[in-house]
């Protein structure tokens, strides 16, 4: 009889504990690899300790993340989603996110205007900003690339890495190549022609770790990609440098967003605020050379030299209309697949 009481009490305790833990738990996504490790260090683990909560992190890239949110619209399973490449605009337009009001964020006053420009539209704030340009092996890529169109340079044939459109950095670098070649968001034929010309000497990859492996093991010399990975590769001992081609580079804020229809909105808002604080901003800049969003971020001398900081620097960068990207992405992917298929 006693064992039955204990068993019953144990079961009850388990149920209650599960229920309680559901209150102090956040489900978020991150982007895997070195990025996710840094994310944990700068924001996730610190928040867990400071607030005694549990955060469940799943590695999901932005396009996949929006697909999942769409599928889960009736009963979303994520509290906070991190999105890049303008996908926050698509998610907000579809009502998948809860709008955030400036007064709900303690760090709001310290943020640069570019980080919060679309909060009124229901998007979350940017917590770091990446720049998409050209990665190149400083020792082997001779001459060093100067222009986006240099991907067709026969000197790089066999050592060029292009990124698939399923990856946001691949999409943005392609749109830039298209722009430089004379195309627009409505006409990507010029961009596809350039890609077709360089296809014979190119490998097409889709995930960040694959790019890393390509430079480390597969003799890659040139790859249009984001600045953060150049720094990661340099840290890994490879002579890889980042440059902004002469026609400009693409600016891509990475946003943290509140998912609509979830119970832990107050805790989630706290997490979002925590992501925007000065230490986190500085940490991202030191680790990956992301542009800081918080005016009060204190950067070391080398980090300050390597990042684009402040309104002036970001003014010269190119952005593409995220709503248009969201609408046209499907059609672009179809055309891209046909161009790259063997």
């Amino acid at each position: 009889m006693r064992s039955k009481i204990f068993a019953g009490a144990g079961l009850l305790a388990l149920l209650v504990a599960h229920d309680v833990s559901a209150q102090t738990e956040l489900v978020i996504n991150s982007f895997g690899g070195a990025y996710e490790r840094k994310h944990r260090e700068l924001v996730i683990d610190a928040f867990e300790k400071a607030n005694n909560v549990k955060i469940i992190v799943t590695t999901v890239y932005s396009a996949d993340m929006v697909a999942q949110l769409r599928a889960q619209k009736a009963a979303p399973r994520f509290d906070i989603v991190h999105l890049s490449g303008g996908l926050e605009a698509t998610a907000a337009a579809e009502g998948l996110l809860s709008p955030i009001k400036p007064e709900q964020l303690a760090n709001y006053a310290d943020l640069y205007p570019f980080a919060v420009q679309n909060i009124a539209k229901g998007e979350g704030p940017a917590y770091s900003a990446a720049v998409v340009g050209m990665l190149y092996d400083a020792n082997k890529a001779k001459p060093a690339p100067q222009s986006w169109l240099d991907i067709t340079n026969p000197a790089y044939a066999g050592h060029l890495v292009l990124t698939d459109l399923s990856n946001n950095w691949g999409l943005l670098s392609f749109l830039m190549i298209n722009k430089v070649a004379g195309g627009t968001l409505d006409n990507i034929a010029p961009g596809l022609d350039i890609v077709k010309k360089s296809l014979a000497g190119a490998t097409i990859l889709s995930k960040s770790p694959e790019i890393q492996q390509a430079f480390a093991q597969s003799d890659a010399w040139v790859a249009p990609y984001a600045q953060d990975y150049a720094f990661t590769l340099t840290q890994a001992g490879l002579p890889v440098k980042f440059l902004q081609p002469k026609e400009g580079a693409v600016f891509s804020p990475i946003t943290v967003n509140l998912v609509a229809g979830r119970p832990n909105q107050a805790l989630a808002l706290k997490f979002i605020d925590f992501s925007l604080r000065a230490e986190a901003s500085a940490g991202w800049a030191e680790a990956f050379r992301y542009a800081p969003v918080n005016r009060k971020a204190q950067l070391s001398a080398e980090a300050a030299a390597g990042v684009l900081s402040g309104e002036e620097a970001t003014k010269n960068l190119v952005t593409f209309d995220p709503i248009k990207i969201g609408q046209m992405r499907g059609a672009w992917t179809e055309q891209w697949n046909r161009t790259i298929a063997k």
Partner: protein
Amino acid sequence: MKREAFLLLMPGVVVLGFVFALPVAQVLLLAFDEGPGQIGAANFSKLFVDSYYPLVAERTIRLASLITLVTALLGVPLAYVMYRAQGWIRSALIVLIVLPLMTSVVIRTFGWLVILGRGGLLARTLDMFGLAPRNFSLMHTETGIVLALAQVLLPFMTLTVLAAMSRIERNLEEAARTMGAGIFATLWHVVLPLARPGIVSGSLLVFALAVSSFVTPMLVGGVRLPVLAGAVYQQMTSTLDWPFAAAQATLLLALALLVILPYARLARARGG
């Protein structure tokens, strides 16, 4: 007696209906969804607007057939060896075959990425014999896909054929040998025909698995060698055009049935 059989079957049929028939029916219906409130075959005509999807479908079927052939060529002799082996050797071989099945297919595929890549085991071995340079790579090739997927699916063929062979009576082989048949003649005239049902089941299983596989082809073949299942995955997660993805899935199902049904019927007709 019939009523009892019916009642015993009912729970299984109901479960199968929910987890199999209902989702498949939903996908088929989704394929005809042309937008809010419209029904039509626009998604299917989109598939044939140019040669891209037909090429993807052709590649899927061709690679799946090749993989089935390779696993049969490797798996049937292996099953025979296992069938003839006794005691601990047989157990060891079974463990060797089954162990990979307990590892995730992604992990096994990653193993292939290392072997097939530049400077990998394959490249270095070929370089040792002077057959290929060090940076030779089967990554991002159809050959690589066939190799990796054949290895992943080999246990399914081997175990199915082994099960069929185990039901063959030993004395039949001995009888053939005493009548003067050599080893290969015995194999050809006695063992293989008796194991045919197993070989047929094994090939159907491997073909069905190979034709719907997308993880290994995506990882080994890359984005330039799409297969139908991979295209469906991309539509579902990246382009987000679910009705079109459903149309592709229906095409995959139709093509697979087109190959499997005649094959199964033919095999049964010849006494398999």
